[in-house]
């Protein structure tokens, strides 16, 4: 079974972001970029499926600027067999990304597609679900366990209040939650080998997809700052403040 994994280049999760002074967007110049953490989990799951003999080939795909090829090379170093870069400098919204991926799914006919549950920049949590809808496939979102059994897939999903297990017919779309696995690090020899693995470059136009945005970004602001608080000296003082000053307990 062929497994398709979508990855996204995002700001590194450790970076404290800055809003541009003109409030047009977040400032991404000279900021460290990396693979979205949920996408790392998606790649790891695909590699584990290959190690178990379930997956025969892993294809990594990304939609984004030329620099996003770094993240595809990372996926190749981690175990993907080849990569597809759909290159565009446009700000790609979820729907456009899902349309591009749906075309790739149509061309590649994978048995399983794995994506992260959300990207830590836009925090949208949409692309996997949108891809499933467009490709006419079932979805297993927020997966914490994935078991392929013949032509079906059992997915344990993290839902509010606990866990839910569903069975999906294959092919299917899975989005990863944090606890699905712990991603491995790329080893130096694998990073060297990854440079020789095939990487196809296409454009959204090649796939017949218009990536123009639907949502206008009017303004980006820093969140309201909290007022600096005080340090109390004892539990007594804390209880007193909560009762008589903040009045949040009685």
């Amino acid at each position, binding site marked *: 079974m062929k497994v398709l994994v979508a990855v996204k280049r995002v700001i590194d999760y450790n970076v404290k*972001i800055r809003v541009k002074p003109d409030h047009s967007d977040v400032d991404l110049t000279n900021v460290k970029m990396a693979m979205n953490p949920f996408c790392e989990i998606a790649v790891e799951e695909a590699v584990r499926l290959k190690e178990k003999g379930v997956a025969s080939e892993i294809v990594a795909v990304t939609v984004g600027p030329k620099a996003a090829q770094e993240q595809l090379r990372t996926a190749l170093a981690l175990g993907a067999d080849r990569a597809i870069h759909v290159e565009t400098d446009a700000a790609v919204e979820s729907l456009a990304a899902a349309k591009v991926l749906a075309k790739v799914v149509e061309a590649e006919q994978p048995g399983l597609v794995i994506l992260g549950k959300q990207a830590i920049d836009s925090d949208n949590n949409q692309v996997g679900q949108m891809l499933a809808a467009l490709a006419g*496939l079932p979805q297993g979102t927020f997966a914490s366990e994935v078991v392929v059994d013949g032509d079906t897939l059992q997915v344990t999903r993290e839902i509010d209040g606990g866990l839910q297990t569903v069975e999906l*017919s294959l092919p299917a779309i899975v989005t990863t939650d944090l606890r699905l696995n712990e991603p491995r690090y790329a080893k130096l020899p694998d990073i060297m080998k990854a440079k020789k693995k095939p990487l196809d470059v296409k454009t959204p136009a090649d796939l017949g997809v218009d990536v123009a945005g639907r949502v206008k970004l009017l303004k980006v602001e820093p969140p309201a700052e909290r007022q600096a608080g005080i340090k109390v000296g004892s539990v007594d003082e804390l209880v007193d403040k909560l009762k008589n000053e903040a009045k949040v307990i009685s």
Partner: protein
Amino acid sequence: MSILVLAEHHDGQLSSATAHVVAAAKQIGGDIHVLVAGQGVSAVAEAAAQLDGVAKVRVADHAVYAHQLAEPLGDLLVALADDYGHVLACSSTTGKNVLPRLAALKDVGQLSEIIAVESADTFRRPIYAGNAIATVQSEDALKVITVRATAFDAVGETGSASVEAVATVVDNTRSTFIKEALAESDRPELGSARVVISGGRGMGNGENFTLLEAIADKLGAAIGASRAAVDAGFVPNDMQVGQTGKIVAPDLYIAVGISGAIQHLAGMKDSKVIVAINKDEEAPIFQVADYGLVADLFQALPELEQKL
């Protein structure tokens, strides 16, 4: 244009989050309809009919909608959406699972987790783990939106909307519900509790969370945890507060043994009053705490319990 709100419900009960989503719908303006989809949901529909501002409750009661799987629910919403200018749901795991399917099938974008309504087409939403707030305008005819429940005050329950059945039944051959394992709790639900007390890696192990339980019982609080505490296996992951867990905004949030990583703050920094108890006075949590106590939690917690 009318607004359709997808009701959130579990075990035959309407979730309190729905009243918050209806509040967001009221700010948009227009007739508000609530869709209750599931199996055996007449009690849920009656509860939804009592929410202030709701004009009509539409009930899709059929086995195919049991457990609210994304595939049939998405198809149902697609069938109903043409009557509406907005479709709203809570940004719960159900809302997040279903609404993007509707958006894609109607070829429109989706706005996730809005925290404010500026106008019928302009909304505010957090990005980058809440470290920036974006004001966005949707140019689509149909606006598909998930709402962060804690950002809107719940509407009252003195309404009396009409209830009507939805005849639409869709097929679902692609997904099957197998089982559910829910964490049992007598305490208030984390997402809607007035007081939340959370433990982090500093708790040391899962047994020590009983120290929090004693205080939670006195305050009527829900118990949460940081990702570090969940990853360390102290508590189950549905207790996690943060960017990748639950977003809470209670009146009082007590963070115990939590350093205050960006990902945790994204889940709780809109709480009215934040208390931090930590022995490391350099911990970033003190930068957002209204009241900070630098102390060993193993001494401070029993003392706090005794004095409440």
